[in-house]
């Protein structure tokens, strides 16, 4: 797998209340693992939503696999785990297997029937993530960690080339969070899946991601974690002590 997976050029998202994102330009190559970090309200989630065509772009452009986002239709190449799922309806009556199977709809044409082979794919994905034993449980009844694994399985079941995760660890305890980050790094390394991960954990994501994108409405940094740690701009932004703590957290 090679080539450019994501490209944003002078991307901006402005609403009546003001601009959430301004003049963001970057590109992501196949196999990259990009950690998107920044303070609350810095536009991290808006950025990934704009890339996916979920929010309107007011200036610039965004492309996925070379196609402009508004006209992108190859959803089978993308796996997505949105932030809003932390507020998932606890009485939703779908089993883990039924929930994961929804991820295969991106590969289907109308009327999107699932075959026996599709269900075997669902089982294989659950098995790969070590959650086959909970396939018949209701998604709303799982612990935070199990739920997040099930939703990751949903994002991976269509064997995507690009995986976009929006604050996937927000509801997890530190130990489960660490395991989750290792799992994503493993998927990136062994399957060559390009990963875009939005998080607040600047220090932790730096241990795994190949690139960091620091956002505060505008893109303030885009490069490797090493460069991030030695960047005078980031040092000026965080203060030397905080930057040192972030870069040496293990």
């Amino acid at each position: 797998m090679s080539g450019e997976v994501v490209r944003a050029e002078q991307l901006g998202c402005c609403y009546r209340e003001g601009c959430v994102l301004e003049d963001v330009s970057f590109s992501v190559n196949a196999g990259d693992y990009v950690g998107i970090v920044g303070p609350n309200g810095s536009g991290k989630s808006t950025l990934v939503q704009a890339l996916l065509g979920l929010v309107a772009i007011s200036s610039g452009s965004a492309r996925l696999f070379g196609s402009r986002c508004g006209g992108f239709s190859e959803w089978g190449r993308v796996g997505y785990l949105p932030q809003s799922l932390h507020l998932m309806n606890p009485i939703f009556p779908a089993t883990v297997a039924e929930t994961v199977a929804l991820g295969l709809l991106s590969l289907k044409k109308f009327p999107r029937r699932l075959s026996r082979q599709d269900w075997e794919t669902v089982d294989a994905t659950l098995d790969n993530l070590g959650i086959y034993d909970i396939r018949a449980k209701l998604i709303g009844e799982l612990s935070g960690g199990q739920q997040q694994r099930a939703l990751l399985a949903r994002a991976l079941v269509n064997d995507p080339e690009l995986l976009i995760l929006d604050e996937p660890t927000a509801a997890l305890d530190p130990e489960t969070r660490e395991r989750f980050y290792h799992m994503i790094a493993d998927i990136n390394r062994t399957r060559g899946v390009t990963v875009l991960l939005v998080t607040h954990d600047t220090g932790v994501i730096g241990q795994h991601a190949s690139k960091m994108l620091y956002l505060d409405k505008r893109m303030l940094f885009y490069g490797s974690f090493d460069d991030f740690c030695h960047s005078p701009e980031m040092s000026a932004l965080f203060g030397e002590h905080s930057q040192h703590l972030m870069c040496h957290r293990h």
Partner: protein
Amino acid sequence: MDILEILSYGFIQRALLAGVLIAVLCSVLGVFLVLRRLSLIGDGLAHVTFGSTAIALAFKIYSAASLLVSLPVVLLASLGILRLTEKARLSGDAAIGIVSATGIAVGIILASVGGGYNVDLLSYLFGNILSITREEVLIAAGLFCVVMLLLGLFFNDLLAISFNEELARVSGVRTRLINSVLVMLTALSVVLAMKLVGIMLISSLLILPAVSALQLARSFKACIGLAALQGCCSVVAGIFVSFMTNLPTSAMIVLINLLFFGCACGARRLITPGNSN
């Protein structure tokens, strides 16, 4: 009077057949509506049905033919609710409230101007399944087939948007189209259910079987099946009990549904360990 004797009456046979078909439709759609937090859309569209029925009666169009006036009006109203939420940046309940109030207002004005057909209009308010005609049964059967076919074709898309609309879009589901399909199917079912439980009680037929099933179901398909089963049982039991006790059928159907809901809540407390709160 035994059950076989009751079943020998033509009006009971028609009521049971139409009632079961409508109950299945409402119960299945209700699961999606409850999960989409659109439970009250049935109520809103029922009020529009009241207005459209008043229009039909104003033009001296009665019985099965009045459905042909109600259907396009209620279908348009259902799409109007969706567009209001999208374009006017209103929440779903506010949009339903606006359309609902408009429907009632039109109905009241026409009833007031017409005067002479208030009794007919009242029969639509509270429903009377036992007076259902052969033509109405045929229309119910035809629409049942159409709605079930569309539900089957769009089932996975409906499930996807019920789970999470953003995720559904990234799975290539045309969420706007599927939302329109859902509210239009609901509109068809509401018009059909008007004769069964009446405009005032339609939302209970959409909501109660669905929320009962949500208490007990261990999978989405089981939830759909349980809701449909409760809908059918409540209609059959409601018709028999009301016939034997000489009480209104529509209200009896709703009360039996409420009883099922109470039982489902009780059963959930019993089977779910540690769920005592």
